[in-house]
């Protein structure tokens, strides 16, 4: 009974304005953290799933030694609950069934074609879908399986080159297969140059019957694995000791193009989430402090009536608990629909939607956030209420208002610091954010103080401008506090906004609309001029051609490279032939990191090589190191004279090793390579090209580019959604701060009106005051945000820094308008208070 009464008393507490603000802040905190967490989990799922589609699995095991993967390895995977499938890749000639005897067809269609075969087992693809057309005019179907035994799917180009029809018979080695349809898109489009010829797909169980794959022939076996992360990891632990040098374990997280984007997106989400938590905590702190100040008279009265400190403490602890419960429930009630909406939005982009799961574990951070916000931010000022002297009833003590504020802030900040470190698992990131904020507060405080003090000389008059300026100065303590909070909030929000824009632009710039979508490989030197003429006729931009010599890196500073490079540094590039090139100019998107380019080297350029920076790091190469490459039977010595970075995801030819023209490679047999953009409407040109230059391999990248763009769009949407939540939290903080001054403003408003201030004047001067505050805060925020971005871009996201004029110019005005609106919203109750209140002594 007693507890029921207490419960009712606590409910009555919610009618208090400050309690409502605390509650709102808590709800926003819980909702933001909850929604971000749930959604980040979902997004992770989405990204992993759609990225896994690149592998057609969660993990791939590549075997490049021509030996099939041990069946026992598959059995072990299956016993650990993983799904498996198998894939065999090789190149071979495809013949129309009757031409193997009659030597070509009269009407010009080639009777044979070099194709790149992908033979897949049942179960393929484990992730993603195969796009398939039953005939040239049939609808595209998304299938979860490959061809059946006895069937072959060919890509459109093979169909055209060989003038095949659906149902025709073709021969792969000794086996006759029936063309069952068109392979439009395979989920695991290859990045490499191993598949130079057009793709056909058949069943893995048919491979033996073709007799094409013999021991020692150039063939790649790939094992596909999918399942729980933990199972995959424990399987890899089991597998790793048994893997040979030619085995490679691939996951999308280690793949190149996307993992960078994913890592950046993940860091962005974490940063956004951290800022939201920080903002919400500030809102809770501001509002609960306000509540505690209001409660002092009540506490003093209760003490006079005989309540002891302990009872008072317990009384407020119960209230805090009630707030906590209400905040968590309210926050979750808000988070779940937000999460659901965001996830549906993200799912719309997916070929195969991910289930919108409710993961109870993702709720915990939200609850912990609520608890930390309550106990680190709301509790200290309330706890101090027990020491309010009963004497206060008779005489309010001087300046007890600011007691303990330093201790409170220190406690709150430590709590949030630990909380964020736990969330982000990135102490550096959190420390950077905190250090940034500390500097920011200091700078903002100093600036603000300077500005406000500059207003000292203004005296008021009946003009709204003068009243506004005077009010800013006279309430300088409050003005400064508000200015700092607003500027900080605006800085955080605009930093996040700028970061999002620059991330998205960076990603889009990596893959512009006219990114190269075709590679031409194996261009013979004598074809170079005519191919060049052909490409220039059809491509919209200038196209670079690079010579390519295949060679192995065999010696490093006189030692065989396998001994010189320690086992831990085992590098894939050492196991295979590298594409070596020579070039006069460095490609525009490469960047010289160390050393000098050819002209500065003079004579030494002839024996110089420029190395890609990541490979240099993995091999431990430095300027001046002596390398020896083996090309065919020849040895090519070279000195490392420069290290350069390369944009691997540029869809342009990139090289680990580049020599100078006229250098060591010139005398060696080379082929040429290029990439260019062919507009959609000109795709038929490729068929003409392959007929004109049958020996040149064409690699189509369009599907890959489309997939990467899809993922960038998804990440972009997630980022925007989270930015939206953070902005909402920012607005909540600003509203909380503005509301915290409501009490004082109501008193002041009533007095001013009694003294004869007209409503219209008060409205105008208050709007001006807030607008001015907002403008200054916006200006400071722009400067601070650009500074923060400068630091973040370099340290965290590895992007380029640019000053953002549109935001710089507009933010002060946006924030002025925003604060004027908040001010107007706050004025409502101020104007409603009758001046009679002063006489009634209700304050």
């Amino acid at each position, binding site marked *: 009974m007693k507890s029921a009464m207490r419960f009712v008393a606590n409910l009555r507490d919610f009618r208090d304005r400050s309690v409502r603000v605390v509650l709102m802040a808590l709800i926003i905190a819980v909702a933001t953290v909850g929604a971000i967490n749930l959604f980040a989990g979902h997004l992770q799922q989405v990204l992993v799933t759609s990225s896994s589609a690149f592998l057609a699995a969660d993990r791939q095991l590549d075997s490049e030694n021509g030996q099939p993967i041990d069946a026992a390895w598959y059995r072990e995977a299956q016993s650990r609950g993983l799904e498996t499938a198998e894939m065999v890749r090789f190149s071979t000639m495809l013949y129309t069934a009757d031409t193997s005897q009659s030597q070509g067809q009269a009407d010009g269609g080639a009777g044979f074609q070099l194709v790149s075969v992908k033979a897949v087992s049942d179960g393929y693809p484990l992730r993603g879908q195969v796009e398939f057309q039953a005939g040239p005019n049939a609808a595209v179907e998304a299938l979860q399986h490959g061809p059946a035994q006895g069937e072959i799917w060919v890509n459109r180009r093979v169909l055209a080159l060989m003038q095949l029809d659906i149902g025709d018979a073709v021969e792969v080695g000794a086996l006759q297969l029936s063309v069952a349809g068109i392979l439009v898109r395979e989920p695991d489009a290859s990045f490499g140059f191993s598949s130079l010829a057009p793709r056909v797909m058949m069943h893995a169980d048919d491979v033996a019957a073709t007799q094409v794959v013999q021991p020692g022939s150039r063939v790649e076996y790939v094992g596909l694995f999918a399942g729980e992360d933990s199972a995959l990891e424990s399987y890899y632990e089991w597998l790793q000791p048994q893997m040979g040098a030619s085995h490679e374990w691939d996951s999308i997280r280690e793949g190149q193009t996307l993992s960078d984007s994913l890592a950046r997106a993940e860091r962005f989400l974490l940063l956004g989430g951290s800022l939201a938590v920080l903002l919400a905590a500030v809102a809770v702190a501001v509002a609960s402090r306000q509540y505690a100040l209001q409660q002092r008279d009540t506490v003093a009265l209760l003490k006079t009536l005989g309540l002891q400190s302990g009872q008072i403490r317990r009384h407020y602890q119960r209230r805090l608990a009630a707030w906590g419960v209400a905040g968590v429930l309210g926050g979750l009630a808000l988070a779940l629909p937000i999460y659901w909406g965001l996830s549906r939005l993200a799912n719309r982009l997916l070929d195969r939607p991910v289930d919108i799961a409710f993961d109870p574990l993702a709720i915990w951070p939200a609850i912990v956030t609520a608890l930390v916000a309550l106990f680190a931010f709301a509790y200290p000022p309330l706890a101090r209420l027990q020491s309010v002297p009963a004497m206060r009833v008779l005489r309010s003590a001087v300046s007890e208002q600011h007691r303990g504020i330093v201790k409170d802030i220190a406690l709150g900040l430590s709590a949030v610091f630990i909380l964020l470190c736990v969330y982000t698992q990135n102490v550096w990131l959190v420390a950077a954010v905190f250090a940034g904020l500390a500097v920011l507060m200091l700078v903002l405080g100093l600036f603000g103080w300077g500005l406000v003090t500059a207003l000292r000389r203004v005296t*008021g008059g*009946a003009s709204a401008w003068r009243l506004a300026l005077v009010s800013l100065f*006279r309430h300088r303590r409050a003005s400064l506090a508000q200015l700092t909070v607003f500027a900080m909030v605006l800085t955080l929000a605009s930093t996040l906004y700028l970061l999002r824009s620059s991330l998205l632009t960076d990603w889009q710039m990596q893959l512009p609309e006219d990114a190269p979508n075709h590679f031409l490989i194996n261009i013979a030197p004598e074809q170079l001029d005519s191919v060049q003429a052909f490409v220039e006729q059809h491509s919209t931009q200038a196209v670079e051609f690079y010579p390519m010599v295949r060679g192995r890196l065999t010696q490093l500073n006189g030692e065989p490279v396998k001994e010189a490079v320690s086992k831990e540094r085992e590098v894939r590039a050492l196991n295979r032939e590298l594409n070596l090139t020579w070039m006069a100019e460095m490609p525009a998107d490469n960047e010289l990191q160390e050393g000098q380019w050819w002209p500065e080297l003079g004579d030494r350029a002839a024996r110089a090589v420029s190395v890609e920076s990541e490979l240099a790091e993995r091999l431990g190469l430095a300027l001046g190191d002596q390398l020896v490459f083996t090309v065919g039977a020849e040895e090519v010595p070279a000195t490392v004279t420069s290290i350069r970075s390369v944009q691997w995801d540029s869809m342009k030819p990139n090289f680990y090793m580049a020599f100078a023209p006229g250098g060591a490679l010139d005398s060696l047999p080379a082929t040429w390579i290029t990439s260019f953009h062919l507009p959609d409407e000109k795709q038929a040109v490729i068929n003409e090209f392959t007929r004109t230059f049958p020996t040149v391999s064409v690699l189509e990248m369009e599907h890959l580019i489309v997939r990467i763009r899809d993922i960038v769009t998804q990440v972009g949407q997630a980022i925007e959604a989270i930015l939206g939540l953070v902005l909402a939290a920012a607005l909540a903080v600003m509203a909380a701060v503005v509301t915290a001054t409501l009490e*004082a403003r109501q008193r*002041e408003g009533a007095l001013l009106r009694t*003294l004869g*201030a007209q409503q219209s004047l008060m409205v105008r001067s208050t709007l001006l005051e807030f607008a001015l505050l907002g403008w200054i805060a916006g200006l400071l925020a722009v400067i601070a945000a650009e500074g923060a971005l400068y630091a973040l871009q370099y340290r965290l996201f590895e992007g380029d820094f640019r000053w953002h004029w549109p935001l710089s110019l507009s933010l002060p005005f946006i924030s002025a308008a925003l604060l004027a609106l908040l001010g107007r919203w706050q004025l409502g109750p101020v104007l409603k208070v009758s001046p*009679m209140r002063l006489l009634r002594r209700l304050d």
Partner: protein
Amino acid sequence: MSVAPSTRHSSYDTPAQAQVHALRVESLAYRVTVGEESLDILSDVSMAIAAGESVAIVGRSGSGKTTLLGLLAGLDSPTEGAVWLAGEEMTAMSEDQRAALRAQRVGFVFQSFQLLPALSALENVMLPLELAGKDDPRERASDLLQRVGLGERLNHAPRQLSGGEQQRVAIARAFAAAPKILFADEPTGNLDAHTGETVSDLLMALNREQGTTLVMVTHDKTLAARCQRQFHIEAGRVSEVRLNAKAELGL
């Protein structure tokens, strides 16, 4: 095109007479409705106060004194009746017009001082000067604070001042814009007897000196006795108390 509010004069009132009366009230009534029942706080109050007069309104707690003061100062609107302040009918004005009138003509002293805590003593006194658009608010405010004996404490915040000092700041503020009429609500109510007397002295002295009309609500019999006229209010009805000849002559 906006039209200035017409100021209604009663039939026997010539403009000259209106100027004589700093404050005139006719058939004032104030009623509040609580649910089904309506409650008369004030009914049929009429009075006329000449410029420069000092008037005390006395009565028990809850008798309607404060409500009457609020209506006289135009802080609230009556249910019936009219109030003329300095010849202008406030009851026909909008809230903003009443505010403008107060800025020019009216000063206030409150029981709980009502100084703005964030402002210094000087800034509190400057406030009405600024609202009335007077020149040199800083000099005038500091002069006034000198006069009430707080010349050394211009930049002190209200919480650094004692109750008596706060009320002296409030009085300086009330007289700052040289009002024609000053309303005081229990000006000594929060002060001890001795401090209260000092404050009363100051109030009366400034009243005489500036020729201000003074209307105050008070429980303080001594303070009430120092006024030229007294109105007694009981159960919402107001009656003038007959004073002795000495007071009537203002000696």
